[in-house]
């Protein structure tokens, strides 16, 4: 279930500002607020739990060290921008200078298959669990450029305008990638069933 932020809760910028004043608990709140979205995105993009953990930690260390300098209007956009930059650096190191945008369908091997997912709980039917795992595998088989948009939208709950801004692409490009991802996923899930 998605975590919802009520209007009464302090804004991201407020929490970061309070952390900059010395309230460490405010940063913990921020981490908790974005923990699932970011970690899932990193796992989805790297296909590796340990890499995702490293990237997640690096991301928050950057946020912590630059908390004083944060003047941006949107903390979320700033944070996602850092996340994406970290991912680009990570992929460059792993794939010898291939940018995320340059990755073609052939080069982009699904890594999610290597992910060890939790087994089904007694409440969950085996079939249901199987479908959820297949959906994850299908996401892992998407080209990186489509996968990042898809996960930012579905897991990160980001609006398309923000996604386009983070990826530095026109809005139509982001929408097009989402369309391609959805079409492809539907097709793949149909084949898997």
């Amino acid at each position, binding site marked *: 279930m998605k975590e919802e932020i009520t209007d009464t809760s302090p804004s991201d910028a407020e929490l970061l500002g309070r952390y900059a004043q*010395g309230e460490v608990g405010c*940063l913990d709140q921020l981490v908790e607020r974005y923990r699932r979205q970011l970690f899932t995105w990193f*796992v989805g993009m790297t296909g590796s739990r340990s890499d995702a953990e490293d990237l997640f*930690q690096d991301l928050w260390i950057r946020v912590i060290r630059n908390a004083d300098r944060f003047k941006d209007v949107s903390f979320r956009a700033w944070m996602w921008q850092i996340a994406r930059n970290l991912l680009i650096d990570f992929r460059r190191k792993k794939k010898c200078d291939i940018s995320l945008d340059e990755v073609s369908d052939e080069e982009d091997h699904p890594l999610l298959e290597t992910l060890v997912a939790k087994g089904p709980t007694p409440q969950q039917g085996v079939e249901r669990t199987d479908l959820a795992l297949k959906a*994850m595998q299908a996401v892992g088989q998407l080209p990186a450029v489509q996968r990042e948009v898809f996960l930012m939208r*579905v*897991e990160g709950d980001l609006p398309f305008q923000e996604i386009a801004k983070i990826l530095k692409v026109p809005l139509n490009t982001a929408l097009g990638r989402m369309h391609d991802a*959805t079409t492809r996923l539907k097709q793949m*899930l149909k084949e898997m069933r």
Partner: protein
Amino acid sequence: MKKDVTIQEDAELQDLAEITPWVREGFARIEGPSARVLAAIHQEAVEQARRRPLRIRFFFALRLSAAAAVLLLLSGLVFNVWRSRGQDQHQQVVQLLNLTVKNPIVENLGSATPSDLPELLLTMQGLDRESYFNASDGTEALWL
């Protein structure tokens, strides 16, 4: 090559609504990040929060010393200009004095008696007693 994509919104939303729950359910199985990572982040936050006042004090001291250095430089510059102007004035006075002292007429002043003064005054004007009182152009008629 660019492809023409016709996005049918309703169908798109329907597809997405069909896929999203499965994807979310799948990703919900991923536990994490681990407590170790969260603890490391918390530790870093504590460390940075502890260092922040020190850093602020350090940067304040740095700015203060920079301002002091600039002030020192400026005062040195002002002092130098003031001193060089003073030196110029001093040199001018010295030059004037030198000129005055080197003048033979002035040098003779010390030994002059009051009776010599008219002579000296004429000398200073580049005249002499002979040519002043005995004009070579002869006696001028004082009447028409």
